[in-house]
């Protein structure tokens, strides 16, 4: 702020018809007040206007802009405007503002909105699809290459991922699977008791958990826990130019970052599913014995004869597919992040939503196919 900030409210007065007397502090905190003062003024109709600014005590760029703007406006209406008594320290400032103003005019460009027409929409989405397909293709090529030559696999990264995304997910998946078993048994109990069909709680819990609930619960948890982390990790590496460094060092980001994560989840998700199966059934059995008088021994006996092994294998078959979907979507979204911190959050969210969506779509397709085959 130029000069001593003696903070006085600004005033604009019209004296003897042709003189505009300005007073007070023309500084940013008073700009709104100044602006209303200036817009409410009835400008004299004489041609020559004199601005008496000797009493302006303080002025900053904001004040100078308002003054200059008003003077320009008056000039454009055909007035002759002159400044009188401007303090020397403000002269530079006025000069400074006027010289820059002329470069600014016509003011800032108005934002153009992208035309969201059909063509643009289609080209954008086909672009995304082509990108995604290219990513899947590249990953598949690399996957087969590493399977042929296991020495290419980054074992350290794989085991690290296995530990973080598999082992550390045990408590939460276990707890949730147990609770799912409890919930299913409770919901079934009420209905089954009406028909005296208590023992069928075993079929209900066993089949639904093995075929659907366990793999889905694990997949959804892993999508939230690890899929999002993959997107954020790879995205942050892109922002910090680590990905570029990887490429220029002659390494492949696919080999280094994507495959270990995909392999780790392909191993971890089925194992977690088995674990979830066991805990879910224990939950169901507890409710069965407390609510339906089905003892543990009866439960196990019925389990052996009614829950066919194929249900277990169907669930276990889906688990690695879910794992591939989650890992690929997470990594793909990570690579889509441009060098922009804002993108990290956005892409992470998209990654989780997309992977859960794809997991459920895949699951639905499986159900339809299996019902055709009667298994």
């Amino acid at each position: 702020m130029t000069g001593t900030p003696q903070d006085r409210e600004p005033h604009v007065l019209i004296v003897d018809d042709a003189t505009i007397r300005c007073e007070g502090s023309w500084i940013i905190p008073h700009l709104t007040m100044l602006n209303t003062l200036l817009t409410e003024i009835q400008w004299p109709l004489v041609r020559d206007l004199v601005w008496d600014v000797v009493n302006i005590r303080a002025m900053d760029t904001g004040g100078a802009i308002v003054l200059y703007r008003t003077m320009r406006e008056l000039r454009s209406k055909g007035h002759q405007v002159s400044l009188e008594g401007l303090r020397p320290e403000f002269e530079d400032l006025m000069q400074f503002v006027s010289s820059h103003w002329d470069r600014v005019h016509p003011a800032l460009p108005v934002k153009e909105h992208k035309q969201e027409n059909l063509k643009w929409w289609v080209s954008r989405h086909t672009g995304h699809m082509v990108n995604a397909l290219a990513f899947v293709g590249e990953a598949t090529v690399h996957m087969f290459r590493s399977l042929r030559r296991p020495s290419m696999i980054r074992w350290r990264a794989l085991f690290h991922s296995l530990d973080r995304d598999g082992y550390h997910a045990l408590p939460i998946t276990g707890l949730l699977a147990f609770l799912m078993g409890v919930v299913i048994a409770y919901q079934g109990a009420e209905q089954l008791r009406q028909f005296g069909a208590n023992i069928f709680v075993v079929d209900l819990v066993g089949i639904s958990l093995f075929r659907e609930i366990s793999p889905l619960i694990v997949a959804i948890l892993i999508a939230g826990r690890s899929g999002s982390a993959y997107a954020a990790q790879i995205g942050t590496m892109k922002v910090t130019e680590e990905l570029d460094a990887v490429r220029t060092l002659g390494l492949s980001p696919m080999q280094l970052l994507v495959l270990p994560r995909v392999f780790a989840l392909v191993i971890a998700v089925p194992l977690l599913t088995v674990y979830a199966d066991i805990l879910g059934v224990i939950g169901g059995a507890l409710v069965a014995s407390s609510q339906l008088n089905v003892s543990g021994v009866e439960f196990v006996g019925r389990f052996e004869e009614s829950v066919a092994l194929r249900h277990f294998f169907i669930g276990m078959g889906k688990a690695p597919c879910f794992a591939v979907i989650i890992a690929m979507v997470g990594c793909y979204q990570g690579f889509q992040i441009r060098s922009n911190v804002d993108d990290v959050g956005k892409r992470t969210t998209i990654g989780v939503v997309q992977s859960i969506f794809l997991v459920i779509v895949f699951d639905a397709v499986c159900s339809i196919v299996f019902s055709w085959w009667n298994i």
Partner: protein
Amino acid sequence: MASDTIQHRNPVIEVSHVCTRFGDAVVHDDVNVTIMSGEIFAIAGGNGSGKSTLLREIIGLQAQAEGSIRLFGQDMAELRGQGAQHVYRRLGVMFQQGGLFSSLTLAENVAVPLREHTDVSAELIRDIVAVKIATVELPMDSADKFPSELSGGMRRRAALARAIVMDPELLFLDEPTAGLDPIIAAGFDALVLQLKAVLGLTVVMVTHDLDSLWRIADRVAVLGNGTILGVGTMHELSESSDPIIHEYFHGPRGRAAQSQYEVS
């Protein structure tokens, strides 16, 4: 250098007996500096000498272990909430990486202080922002670009535009010319001089750009060994007998910068 033109020279920043430690590492051991209003004060020193740390402590982003730092006569450590807010409105900071908000366009970034701290109308904000963008010599068509779409030099200028949008009394520049090409760096120096002349700013800058030290700094403090090795104009410092300062100014680059300055 500029002391004759400044009418009321009073201390704006007083750093006294500041010590800073990170674990066992001692960064500052009894640092004392007084920065007067209206001067361009540079903090120089080698890598790791604690220049940026000192700057962060002055701005109040980091707490020193001992000693006091007063801005406009107020101890930042004692100010809480509203008081600190009030001090922050009187200063502008340009961070090394710019610190621009990546979700806002350049014009929106520059407008943030006005929008948050004043009730100025949107139309007037646009005019002020446009003048500030012109001041830092950015093209008007970059106003609607996001920081990620700007080059490093443009981002630096945009950050400067945001720092000066409220006409602060005190402007902090962290390595303003690092990583800029010589032409743009020289332009930046000229810009700082012009801002100081027109707006009457006090400028505190951290730099090890010897060219810009010679060209624009009124006084320079050289940090080293955890303390201030010397304070003065560049001429005074270039005649200093301190071995580190001597090394700093009389290395090959230092001499080149000096000779260039003295010829011109």
